[in-house]
């Protein structure tokens, strides 16, 4: 028994420290600390929260000012916490006390989080290119000139849910494409990749000048309300926030704020006054959760497999070609190939995918997202594979090359029949390991709208609030895919009976 109690005490202390340190604070703690930590994504842009164009170190936006008013009502200062928009609610389990960033009030959110009374009303607005179809919302009911309309939305936003629901009900012939950045979809409409985008109306109005080639299609539709999100563990904070919003509405400070931002303050106040009560969604059993999410997760796992199985053979072929070129190619080619490897290895995959998907359309080369993702992964991994193959080729003893040459084989025949087959066997283990790495790296492709398993998990975890359960299901799916791969590659290796060296 000796030593057991101290262990428990230590654990308890650790747990207490972890709890006080990591989890959203309750009202009294916030007040003693003097700071309300609010989370938002400045990448989301205006008019919500964005870096001041004249001083990018400073954040501005109507929500920045709203957060300051709110904190003031609680008698503390507001402190901003950056997060990725579709994962902001997860920060409530970390360091943020609340989330203020255009979070729509829904029955699911009311079940999973503390939701304040609404502080802003919005509607959805569709935008398209000037003089290009669709001309009205109703046009979406029939397929466009090139088949289903391609419509961009912010991933996880009300616009995505609304457009997918319309597509599922057969009311709109649309392919809904989710983007991580608010303005990405408008950019893609402008460059002709998309037919239309659907966003919150306040965003469209705010950026109307920047996207002068775009126009509003039809009137705003399908509105909703923004709420301040808190954790269920901080009911006193939630109540205090509700009280504060009530006072800001009653004394006209909120209306003034919205008027300053050109957000039709009077109309906003009427919308907030007349808003109907949003119901609380019913909880789901684990069985229901799995039944509802598994088909989606499985189809996204299929995308993960497709991406890796299409990209990796290309990466291996290109990598081998680059390695052979660097070791045996003409002198002028070698520095070029070295540059190729260093550039692709030295810049992030995410940036390369952005360049292929968002920059190429600007010079008239618009690739479908899936193609861009496969090319991006293949290019990036070809740099790593080429280094592995270079090492493999160098590991084949010189005597092999000499023996091949002495038999009359040309250099390229010697490479093709003698050196490369041996190098391939030598590098089998690291190449297999890279395949598994690529397999997991496919998750980066969500940045260019390709929804694979990780992205699907994060969207589902957010919309259902069942973060842990879905993480387990997702991890199991990944293992189900990578385990057989590892077994297969070990079998393959043993079959090739890798040579020990120079053929003695």
């Amino acid at each position, binding site marked *: 028994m000796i030593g057991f109690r101290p262990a428990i005490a230590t654990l308890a202390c650790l747990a207490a420290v972890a709890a006080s340190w990591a989890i959203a604070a309750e009202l009294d703690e916030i007040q003693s600390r003097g700071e309300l930590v609010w989370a938002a994504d400045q990448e989301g842009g205006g008019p919500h929260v964005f870096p001041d164009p004249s001083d990018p170190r400073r954040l501005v936006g109507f929500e920045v000012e709203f957060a300051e008013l709110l904190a003031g009502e609680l008698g503390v200062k507001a402190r901003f916490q950056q997060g990725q928009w579709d994962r902001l609610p997860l920060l409530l389990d970390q360091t943020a006390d609340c989330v203020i960033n255009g979070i729509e009030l829904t029955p699911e959110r009311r079940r999973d989080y503390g939701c304040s009374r609404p502080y802003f009303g919005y509607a959805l607005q569709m935008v398209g290119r000037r003089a290009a179809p669709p001309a009205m919302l109703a046009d979406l009911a029939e397929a466009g000139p090139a088949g289903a309309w391609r419509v961009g939305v912010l991933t996880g936003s009300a616009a995505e849910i609304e457009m997918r629901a319309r597509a599922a009900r057969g009311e709109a012939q649309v392919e809904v494409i989710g983007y991580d950045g608010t303005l990405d979809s408008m950019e893609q409409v402008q460059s002709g990749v998309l037919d239309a985008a659907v966003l919150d109306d306040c965003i469209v109005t705010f950026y109307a000048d920047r996207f002068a080639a775009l126009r509003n299609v039809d009137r705003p539709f399908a509105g909703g309300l923004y709420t301040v999100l808190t954790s269920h563990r901080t009911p006193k904070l939630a109540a205090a926030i509700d009280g504060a919003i009530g006072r800001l509405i009653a004394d006209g400070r909120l209306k003034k704020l919205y008027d300053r931002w050109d957000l039709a303050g009077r109309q906003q106040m009427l919308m907030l006054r007349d808003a109907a009560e949003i119901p609380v969604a019913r909880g789901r059993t684990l069985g229901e959760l799995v039944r509802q999410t598994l088909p989606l997760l499985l189809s996204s796992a299929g995308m993960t497999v497709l991406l890796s199985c299409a990209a990796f053979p290309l990466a291996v072929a290109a990598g081998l070609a680059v390695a052979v070129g660097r070791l045996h190619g003409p002198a002028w080619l070698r520095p070029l190939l070295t540059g190729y490897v260093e550039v692709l290895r030295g810049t992030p995959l995410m940036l390369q995918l952005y360049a292929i998907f968002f920059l190429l359309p600007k010079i008239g080369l618009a690739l479908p997202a899936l193609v861009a993702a496969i090319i991006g992964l293949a290019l990036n991994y070809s740099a790593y594979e080429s280094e592995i193959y270079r090492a493999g080729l160098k590991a084949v003893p010189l*005597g092999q090359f000499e*023996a091949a040459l*002495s*038999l009359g084989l040309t250099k390229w025949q010697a490479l093709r029949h003698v050196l490369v087959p041996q190098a391939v066997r030598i590098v089998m283990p690291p190449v297999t390991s890279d395949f598994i790495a690529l397999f997991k790296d496919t998750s980066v492709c969500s940045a260019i709208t390709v929804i694979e398993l990780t992205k699907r998990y994060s969207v589902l975890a957010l919309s259902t609030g069942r973060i842990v359960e879905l993480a387990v299901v997702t991890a199991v799916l990944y293992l189900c895919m990578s385990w057989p791969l590892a077994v297969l590659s070990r079998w393959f290796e043993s079959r090739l009976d890798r040579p*020990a060296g120079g*053929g003695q």
Partner: protein
Amino acid sequence: MIEIDSLTKRRAGKPVLDGVSLRGAEAGVTVLVGASGSGKSTLLRCMNGLEIFEGGTITIAGHRLAAGGQSIAALDDLRRDVGMVFQQFNLFPHLSVLDNVMLAPRVVAKVPVEEARCRAVDLLDRVGLSAFVAARPATLSGGQQQRVAIARALAMRPRVMLFDEPTSALDPTMTSEVLDVILDLAKAGQTMVVVTHDHGFAKRAATWVVELAAGRIVRQGTAAAMLG
């Protein structure tokens, strides 16, 4: 068949071969002897273009090698007519014994598959390894591997065979099984140049013996005259 005139080769500024001239190895078996570092292996490797030399010329099986290296096409041509067997065998470990022997006829001489296979099986029979056609090189003894290497070089029907210390990596039993194969070839009239330390072999097989020391030819003559 082989004529060497004033061959000079340096490595890191020092002469490895210093004005080597060789004549009279018309046909039959020329044996190169000499201490380690005397330049005999380098001389052999110059004969099929694995080494570039700075001065002199080599004429072998009708091909002329000039100082400073040859065109790739000229080397590819030369090597079809000049086969080589290495001290370390250098069999291709990823191919079966049969495929080792078939590779060059298939890829270089474009011999049809069936004909290449017949030729390879015949050669492996000739070196006493017809039972091992499907084996991987790594499963064979050193002597067996070297006999496969000889069959592999013979498969291109070279006019000249070069042997670079073919038995140095082998124990006495394996040595004699390899030497028997080389002696059979000599009896059949194959022109060859052999670098060796083995005087017994030189006595039995050589028609002409050349002794090198410090990159120069110090003596040459018939086996009887040179080795007593």
